[in-house]
């Protein structure tokens, strides 16, 4: 037993070789969190209106749609793939749910009114179908996800354009209206939906077999295949999950904004990718999770909101956001490298 005890001791020693290697290996989780604390502290000092209960509520509401879309995107990025069609799919799903709802007579859209629940189900089916096309293109034909979803971005935008033909629709089913713009006990429903979906995503990734497979496929796709996992099925599933999350975000977003129209969600593509990556989920797959995405959402939310509270050239804001994103990408790549060094 002596040798085995020695080995155990060595293992324990390796695990607690000191704080530095541990911090290095946790860099991707720590850096975004420090960024969040730093930004919050900065804006709290710079503007008296920033650190108020009301404003925290604002931030939560502002990040909700991004948060809902980012849930699915987290799955995709964990698998070392990308989905560029999220914003377009959100847009077309939001438009579809309005298309199947009776609009006021002054809205000049040839819409097909359905009962509310049917409209919702049809819209969900549409986004699931578009996700399935992404999935088949990626796994069966072998188109890289970057290109496949770039095509889907155009396709979904095209369907949106055909449905609204340059017009604006306002009505969506009552359920969607409530979830998108209503609130309960002072808390907006859309924040609750986002929280529930983020929690759900976290539970799936952490506690289910499917979640484990997502991490394994992202960590080493070849090894996953050699372990007899159905890699294509898992990749296909995350593409569908991403599309459905985007669709839900799109429907609630339409209700939240009060209108459904072309190009309404364009900024959400970059915001969602930024939230996931700024949070520290590895672009190389297998590392990160919903926890990271939540931190990333808040970093972006605090930044966007805080820049409105301080007196700053509104055109400069765009540049600042870009720089923050670049910094996060650099950290993302370095965190991967540091972790690999820590493992050696």
């Amino acid at each position: 037993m002596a040798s085995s005890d020695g080995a155990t001791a060595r293992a324990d020693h390796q695990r607690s070789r000191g704080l530095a290697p541990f911090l290095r290996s946790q860099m991707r989780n720590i850096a975004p969190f420090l960024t969040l604390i730093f930004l919050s502290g900065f804006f709290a000092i710079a503007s008296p209106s920033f650190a108020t209960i009301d404003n925290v509520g604002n931030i939560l509401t502002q990040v909700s749609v991004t948060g809902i879309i980012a849930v699915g995107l987290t799955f995709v990025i964990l698998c070392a793939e990308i989905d560029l069609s999220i914003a377009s799919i959100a847009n077309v799903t939001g438009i579809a749910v309005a298309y199947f709802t009776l609009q006021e007579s002054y809205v000049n859209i040839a819409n097909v009114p359905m009962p509310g629940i049917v409209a919702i189900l049809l819209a969900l089916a549409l986004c699931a179908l578009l996700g399935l096309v992404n999935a088949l293109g990626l796994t069966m034909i072998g188109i890289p996800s970057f290109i496949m979803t770039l095509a889907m971005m155009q396709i979904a935008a095209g369907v949106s354009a055909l449905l609204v033909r340059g017009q604006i629709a306002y009505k969506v089913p009552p359920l969607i209206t409530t979830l998108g713009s209503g609130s309960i006990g002072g808390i907006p429903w859309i924040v609750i939906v986002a929280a529930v979906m983020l929690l759900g995503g976290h539970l799936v990734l952490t506690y289910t077999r499917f979640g484990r497979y997502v991490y394994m496929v992202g960590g080493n796709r070849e090894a996953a295949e050699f372990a007899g996992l159905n890699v294509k099925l898992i990749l296909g599933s995350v593409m569908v999950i991403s599309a459905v999350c985007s669709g839900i975000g799109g429907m609630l977003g339409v209700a939240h904004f009060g209108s459904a129209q072309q190009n309404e969600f364009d900024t959400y593509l970059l915001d969602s990718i930024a939230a996931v990556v700024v949070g520290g989920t590895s672009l190389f797959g297998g590392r990160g999770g919903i926890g990271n995405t939540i931190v990333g959402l808040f970093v972006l939310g605090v930044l966007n909101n805080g820049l409105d509270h301080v007196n700053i050239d509104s055109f400069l804001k765009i540049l600042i956001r870009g720089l923050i994103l670049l910094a996060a990408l650099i950290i993302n790549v370095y965190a991967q490298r540091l972790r690999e060094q820590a493992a050696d």
Partner: protein
Amino acid sequence: MTQGRSAILELHQITKAFGGVEALRGVDFALHAGEIHGLVGENGAGKSTLMKIIAGVHPEFSGRFMLDGKETRFRSTRDAHAAGIGMVHQELSVAPDLTVAENVFLGNQPTNRLGFVQWRRMAREAGEQLARFGIDVDPMTRLGDLPIGLQQLIEIARVLFSGARIIILDEPTSALSPPEVERLFATLHKLRDEGTSIVFISHFIEDILRVSDVVTVFRNGRKIAETASADTTKGALIEAMIGRGGEALEHSYTDDLMLPQSSAGAAVLKVDQLSLRRSLQDVSFEARSGEVLGIYGFMGCGQLELSRILFGKLRPDGGTLAVDGAAKRFRSTAAARRAGVALVPESRRAMLFHQEPVYKNISISILERISALLLKPVRERAIAQRQVEQLQIRPPVVGLDLGMLSGGNQQKVALAKWLAYPPRVLVLCEPTRGMDVGAKNDVINIVRDLRAKGLAIIVLSTEPETVLSLADRILVLKRGAVVREFAGEAVSKDRLLEAA
């Protein structure tokens, strides 16, 4: 013989170590102008290491390096190239997305005075060079669209016609068809007669004897013998390669070993007339319960492809595969796993999750069985712990990241993954490669235990020792075809090498 002429390349007492392990120990080597020098030796005997020193791949070594009678040191492959030394490496190193012409002129494309590439001239000259070599292809086709053998020929052609005066060919014929080999030999003889010096490394001893003027034998990093090709035989070379007597530390398998009379159970896996493009031709065999089937062959003989077909990663062009009498067409590795086939590939990087803890690496194969939807981490860890103890994986901590384990222990984790499953047919590729003696013995014992439990085990290896130490029955694979079966008879390392 070539003693009359002076050597253009002379190496004295070359020693080279990789991390404490000596790959070359005090080797002398001389190459003369207009000579084809064959090198033979087992895997790891030091042939490739010596050639890489000559080609400037390994700039660090001790000993004297004389080129044209002057002491020289190459700092890089560029230096060697500038000195007129060209090498074709064992692994294909071409740019598949470039055209044939670009590959032929890789690194020295003809340009005009402004630095623009002269495409037409390049295509014409590439076409002429390849035609001299008997290759008739459009120089502007994408190289990757050509068959592997042709790609290898083009890579060889690039080096042969680069104007190098010393050419090193490391296993150049593994992917070539017999007529292609003939063309290569004819060209080599022509170049030799023009004064070029050529080093030719091959596992195919007949090829060495046919093409070379002088043969040098390596064993365990030492030069064992150098003779004129005309004065030796295949048997004598094999004997020199593996050595007799007390030199080897491990069981050397030089003496005859009796394979057991067939006492194995029913056939679990049956493969019939399997073929895959240029890799496999009409391979048929069966793997039986309670038996270890060894499949031996040189690198590039089709083993790799065969193992991938058995596990559903590659699909054969023809032939059938049956598990327990039921014909199977695996559409994915998941399908193969469900049918009871498991594969441990030769590369640890390809089969393990280095950033994940040991227990996740082990439990991945059985998650489907132990959890319908939710993970059961406690159970996962318990199952992994049992495997870790059974296989004596060190350290026995299932929560440790896999990357912290030594190579031998990682290999055991890869086995543990499937032992927890367990499959009906276990396919092992190079199960003991790069292991120390202790870890090797552990793996041998594990495989014997599994055999006793009634698994059908297939061991594929390019090392005769691995196959001999494990197998009850041995197939020899040569250029994609089964050329010999050893069953219930005497077998030894030389007999295996003789057959391959």
